[in-house]
């Protein structure tokens, strides 16, 4: 496989941009990404300026409720946005290539090969009429040019790597003959078959039972340890974040409200929304009196003015209703988009 030599260059840091950390090579760096859904009579901004970076070997969590735009952000990275969606600004740098500048043919060479994706419902994302073996061999042929015996051996290795016992039997099976956990492992094997630099995982454990969820989390951690695989994990579950991620971005209504290393998010959350989410979690150790966040997630076409969280925020002041806060650095590696984070930190 030939790789453009430029991809070895480091991306240029912009010290003026808040929320972007200052050192190290980036696998992915999204800056000011805006996405609109355009319908004949109206257009709705789904992402309004998202910044996100991932360094080599890092597992970045993107947490948010439904409608926060976390999946749209991932789809924009791999160029799989639905036809009504339109990128209206920003850049998505993969090493130092702007993915938004590529045409669909160039994008196809990257998607599924250097950037892979796994989804929430593995059985629905596998092709039901092909066996696991056939799907794996197809990917190996397209991306690595392997065929015949070599492809079979490699496919078996990949299935064994993701912890599937008896790989040759699994290769003969169709997706409906696999359990949820096995299907997710097969999906991960497919995603890894091209030795990607980046894995995007959209709610990878949400459809699975807890004991299987635990196995998949361990598998993703092992992939990072063994192959230094960079991962972006989209989830709504703070437990998954706590187990898996190094850094977390909290999304709400199409924007990132807070970003920090995982320990800091749990110990010193700065944004009222992050604090609310953390205390709204039902936890095994706590039997009663969880504090819920009043109200509900706004519809994107009626996004509140100013800070989109202000109607639900107990700390909202007049400024929150008129002006949209930008991500500001509150500590090294920690940024918050809130007008009042300084006062609230005390």
């Amino acid at each position, binding site marked *: 496989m030939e790789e453009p030599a430029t991809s070895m260059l480091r991306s240029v840091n912009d010290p003026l941009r808040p929320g972007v950390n200052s050192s190290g090579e980036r696998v992915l760096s999204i800056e000011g990404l805006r996405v609109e859904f355009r319908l004949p009579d109206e257009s709705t901004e789904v992402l309004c300026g998202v910044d996100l970076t991932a360094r080599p070997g890092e597992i970045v969590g993107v947490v948010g*409720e439904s409608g926060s735009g976390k999946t749209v952000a991932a789809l924009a990275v791999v160029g799989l946005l639905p036809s009504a969606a339109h990128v209206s600004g920003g850049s998505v740098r993969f090493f130092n290539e702007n993915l938004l500048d590529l045409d669909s043919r160039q994008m196809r060479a990257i998607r599924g090969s250097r950037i892979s994706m796994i989804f929430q419902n593995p059985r629905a994302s596998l092709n039901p009429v092909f066996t696991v073996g056939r799907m794996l061999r197809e990917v190996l042929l397209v991306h690595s040019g392997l065929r015949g015996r070599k492809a079979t051996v490699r496919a078996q290795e990949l299935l064994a790597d993701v912890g599937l016992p008896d790989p040759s039997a699994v290769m003969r099976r169709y997706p409906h003959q696999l359990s949820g956990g096995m299907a997710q492992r097969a999906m991960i094997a497919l995603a890894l078959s091209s030795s990607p630099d980046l894995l995007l995982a959209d709610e990878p454990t949400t459809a699975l039972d807890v004991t299987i*969820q635990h196995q998949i989390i361990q598998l993703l951690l092992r992939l990072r340890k063994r192959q230094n695989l960079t991962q972006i994990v989209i989830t709504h579950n703070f437990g998954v974040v706590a*187990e898996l991620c190094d850094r977390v971005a909290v999304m709400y209504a199409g924007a990132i409200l807070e970003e920090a290393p995982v320990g800091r998010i749990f110990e010193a959350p700065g944004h009222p929304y992050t604090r609310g989410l953390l205390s709204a979690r039902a936890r095994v*150790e706590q039997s009663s009196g969880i504090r*819920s966040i009043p109200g509900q997630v706004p519809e994107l076409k009626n996004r509140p003015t100013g800070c989109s969280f202000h109607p639900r925020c107990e700390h909202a002041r007049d400024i929150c209703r008129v002006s949209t806060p930008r991500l500001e650095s509150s500590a090294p590696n920690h940024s918050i988009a809130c007008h009042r984070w300084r006062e609230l930190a005390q």
Partner: protein
Amino acid sequence: MKPLLEVTGLSKHYPVRTKLWKFRNLVAADDVSLTVQAGETLAIVGESGSGKSTVGKCILRLEAPTSGHVVLDGQPISELSEVEVRSLRAQMQMVYQDPLESLNPRHKVGKLVAEPLLLHGIVSRKEVRKRVSELFHLVGLGSEHIDRYAHTLSGGQQQRVGIARALATSPKLLVLDEPTSALDVSVEAQILNLLQDLQRRMKLAFLLISHDLAVVSMLADRVAVMYLGQIVETGPTRDILASGYHPYSRALVSATPVDHPHQRKVRIALDGEPTSPIDPPQHCRLEPRCPFALPVCREQVADLKQAEERRFTRCIRFNREHVNGSWDPDASVQPGIAKPRAG
């Protein structure tokens, strides 16, 4: 005190055709016995395929059990005819997992809540709107929502409508089937608080069906853990979550994600995935996956035995070794280190 709900020996088998002329039994629930006191919450926890929803449906007679008895408030539900059960349903209602799926999209939500009121003759047509508005108020919805359709409401509001409808007939027992698993985190907390509040005010009994131990720990007084159609352990919620006796209860608790990145947990890893529920073996059903399994676990029938007051366990090793004090599952598992997996 006589329990509000008493289930004894409930089994549900589904015939599955495996070959042209050959049928085998899929055992969805096997000899399930449980009780729920008035005003109490019993949680049935387990993973998909454990039979927890089947038990809920059999109790409400939405499915006819293969065998076993269900007695609600002195009335033998499982022996009554379909028509007789219908009038009894007013006393037991269900709240479903997916609120949108369970609400008719073609009717206004006010009408959906009015339906059971009129069907069971609880209020006259004249008063129905007033009562619906009261019920909406009870679940924290303004009366302006009465004339809306379900799809125009948010997930949390939809679930509130589902709860209002279940409460319309003033039931004594609510079966909650994964009541919050389709909801966002911030909304889930609202619904959990609402359910707790309603239980306190109305002395409702809940049968909570859930796989989420955090939800269970908030709502439930007692827990029954199910695995492949059988109850493997019952006991007070605190005890089961802190120190389950059955290896499966322990594995389930230990697989739940940590609450905090610095928290360390003793992990008990189960090998592979649940075995087939079709014609399951007589011996312990967890045995193929259990890190503590001994040859004896394949040889004997595992029965649910009382370990101490209010606690029952279906583990051969536990029941044998607990008596002489030699049972120490932690000794064979080191913190943070899972048993090496096959393959």
